[in-house]
């Protein structure tokens, strides 16, 4: 194996990595925003309100991300109505199709994580809020959501890593993300092992950085717990 191609094409790979990061960041932010109402509807006491997010979550968690991307990218253009609509400039761009598919996908997973976290809060805290006389909005804003945020962090970190790995599928709809860039370079140099291993290493580094960032946020968010295993840094 000859790793000089890696050195030569490393800047291109980094360009691809930047596209991957953009895909992940935008979809995670949009997905997080959509996930909250979905999660809240999922735990609604009204049966039919619960059913809609249930079906949504079941579909997006039960089918491959690849199918979802193809449905948005190739599927949408099957209809003339879509091609003539004002949304077409967005739907013909592979980048935005990937963002739409990733956002729909990650919002389903994130909604389940949020739901689990909200339901994991001890019932006594909900009762305490009611006893103090908080309205439902106050209860969610002041107690349940901040608490859920702390509980959610480890699972949410995992979801971001999964999204990073899922973002490699963007390469199947001609986006030059890290994987797409690697495949383009390989088509020119025909050195699959070297370039793929380099791309894998970059993914690995990004994952490790994300894990480290989340560990820091977790320590901060859960600092009130005072768990012995969590080391409190000296404030000088």
């Amino acid at each position, binding site marked *: 194996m000859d790793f000089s191609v890696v050195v030569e094409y490393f800047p291109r790979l980094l360009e691809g990595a930047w596209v991957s990061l953009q895909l992940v960041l935008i979809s995670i932010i949009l997905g997080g925003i959509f996930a909250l109402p979905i999660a809240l509807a999922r735990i609604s006491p009204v049966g039919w309100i619960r059913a809609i997010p249930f079906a949504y979550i*079941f*579909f997006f968690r*039960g*089918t*491959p*991300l*690849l*199918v*979802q991307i*193809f*449905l948005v990218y*190739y*599927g*949408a*253009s*099957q*209809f003339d109505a879509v091609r003539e609509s004002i949304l077409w400039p967005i739907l013909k761009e592979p980048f935005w199709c990937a963002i739409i598919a990733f956002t729909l996908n990650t919002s389903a997973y994130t909604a389940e994580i949020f739901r689990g976290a909200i339901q994991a809060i001890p019932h006594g805290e909900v009762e305490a809020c009611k006893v103090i006389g908080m309205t439902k909005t106050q209860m969610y804003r002041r107690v349940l959501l901040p608490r859920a945020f702390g509980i959610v962090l480890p699972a949410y970190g995992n979801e971001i*890593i999964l999204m*990073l*790995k*899922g*973002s*490699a*599928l963007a*390469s*199947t709809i001609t986006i030059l993300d890290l*994987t797409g860039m*690697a*495949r383009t370079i*390989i088509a020119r140099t025909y050195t*699959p*092992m070297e370039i*793929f*291993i380099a*791309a*894998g290493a970059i*993914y*690995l580094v990004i*994952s*490790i950085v994300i894990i480290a960032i989340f560990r820091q946020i977790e320590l901060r968010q859960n600092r009130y717990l005072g768990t012995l295993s969590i080391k409190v840094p000296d404030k000088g």
Partner: protein
Amino acid sequence: MIDLHGFGDQLLQGAVVTLELALCSLFVGLILGLLGASAKLSSVRVLRWIANGYTTIIRGIPELLTVLIIYFGATSVLMAIAGLFGYDEYIEVGAFAAGVTALGLTFGAYATEVFRGALQSIPKGQHEAATALGMGPIRKLYRIILPQVWRIALPGLGNLFLVLLKDTALVSVVGLDDIMRKANIAVSSTKEAFLFYLVAAFMYLALTIISMVFVSFMEKRANRGLTRG
């Protein structure tokens, strides 16, 4: 009824390939997972390093990249090895074999963690009791430890299988004739992308539901020795 333009049979054939791929990868992955978990809990430091490196790398890079690396890389690796033995014909690795290897490796890495947790959750007293009864390490493993590990690991493994089932779609990228590729073929000849990808999606959904039912049946079976409190 939906008009599939005669591609219905093709899609069903694809579903069979998808299922075969998933089951073969599951088999490889379970073995790798057990080996990985044993290595992680081993007292030999080198084995622990290897197992940690394996799970960290596989879990940190995209499944699609793993599939591509195995598909394009296995050929050159195998040819290099064969070259050492003086065999220099071209060796081709098929999409199915590459898929089983890549998905098996991925499943194995995640299953390692599931098995490790299950192995560690078995009280030390049971190991001691088995040894006290005069069981050797192998008999202890398959009579006492593995049946319980199976029960504890099953929910985790079931989830991993659902992930694996969806990951099989990635192997269509290197040309395996699974549901996804059959759908691609149907789309390129009929231009009805939304229809066929939606049908493909519901086929995966159906496979997912069948797997969920099967896993919950297995869980009930595995837990039959426990009294419900």
